[in-house]
């Protein structure tokens, strides 16, 4: 990789990135051919600086172009490439290969609990449906003072800061055992985004959202298993946010 880039004088020590062989076992599914998903092995020569996403690129670009997966920004912001890596939901672009146990094969499969479309791609619509249901937009009918901005103190902003970090990657929702059961539960991500507006001092629609989440399939189905908090690639304290929404619903106000 480096030979044509290097200056004269040979490679310097920090230019030499160690390489290793890693085995990826990817759960492939082509709906036009397969009845059932199947596990396929790939042996790859990778660098210590490579992420799981780079390994998937290598497969797609050099070995089998039919491998299907989503990715957009490839830097942990867009939330497209959440997948199950060694049994845990992670972003492929934020998971370094060297942080996994590369002496063993790395298992990669699509998110659980959402309909599988092809290879690592799932249908995200059920996930976005429950996101839409909590009405994740600012509801404010009153005119702001002086007709300019809705001012907010830094304390008021800090109240919901954690839940503004959500990138809607579905890692939390698809790690939730309650969501797996029948798919009726709103799921952690929708509640996180409701939290973001319920506790926003500028918003006037908290009551509407709390009524929605006070439903049979709302926050009360949460069993506090912390899977969502473990899965969140942004480190959002998801279970805590859900607990705060529960408290708000019990109080009847944020």
């Amino acid at each position, binding site marked *: 990789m480096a030979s044509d880039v290097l200056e004269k004088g040979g490679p310097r020590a920090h230019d030499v990135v160690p390489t290793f062989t890693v085995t990826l076992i990817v759960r492939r599914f082509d709906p036009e051919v397969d009845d059932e998903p199947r596990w396929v092995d790939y042996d790859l020569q990778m660098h210590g600086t490579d992420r799981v996403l780079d390994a998937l690129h290598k497969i797609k670009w050099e070995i089998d172009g039919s491998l299907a997966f989503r990715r957009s920004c490839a830097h942990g912001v867009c939330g497209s490439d959440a997948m199950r890596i060694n049994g845990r939901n992670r972003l492929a672009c934020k998971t370094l290969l060297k942080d996994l146990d590369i002496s063993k094969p790395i298992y990669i499969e699509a998110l659980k609990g959402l309909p599988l479309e092809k290879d690592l791609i799932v249908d995200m619509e059920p996930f976005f449906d429950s996101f839409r249901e909590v009405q994740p937009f600012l509801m*404010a009918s009153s005119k702001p003072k002086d007709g*300019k901005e809705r001012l907010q103190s830094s304390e008021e902003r800090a109240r919901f800061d954690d839940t503004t970090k959500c990138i809607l990657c579905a890692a939390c929702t698809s790690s939730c055992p309650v969501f797996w059961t029948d798919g009726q539960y709103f799921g952690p991500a929708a509640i996180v985004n409701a939290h973001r507006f319920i506790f926003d001092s500028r918003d006037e*629609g908290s009551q509407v959202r709390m*009524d929605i989440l*006070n439903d*049979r399939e709302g926050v009360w189905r949460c069993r506090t298993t912390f899977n969502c908090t473990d899965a969140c690639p942004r480190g959002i304290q998801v279970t805590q946010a859900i607990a705060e929404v529960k408290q708000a619903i019990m109080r009847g106000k944020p």
Partner: protein
Amino acid sequence: MTVSIETPRAPRTVRRGGINWEKWGWIYMRVSGVALVVLIFGHLFVNLMIGHGVKALDFAFVGGKLSNPFWQWWDTLLLWLALIHGANGMRTITNDYARNNLVNLILKGAILAATIVLLILGTLVIFTFDPCPAGAAANLLPTFCSAG
């Protein structure tokens, strides 16, 4: 210039009145959970650790405890809180996994029936238990049987 957003285009019907059972079920689980920690560990401590420990457990020990109003009410509370706590947990699991309406209804009916029967039976035993059955050997009975 800020834009004011009028009422959302897809207003959602607010839940009809009545008791929100899911909410109260959740609160019950939390409250009874805390109470059960005290009740269960108190029960285990008194039965298994104080005095002669587990060796002291026999008919006389249980008979003695169940003739004391304090332990009668302790055990009644333990029975009702724990059984309803467990039954509610089973109900939640049933709702999660039994997707067929009929199966769901049958399972929940069975849980409800079992809970009611066990609550009545258990309460009956706690309050009608005779610690001094006639004709039993005196050395097996609580000491107060022979005293009276």
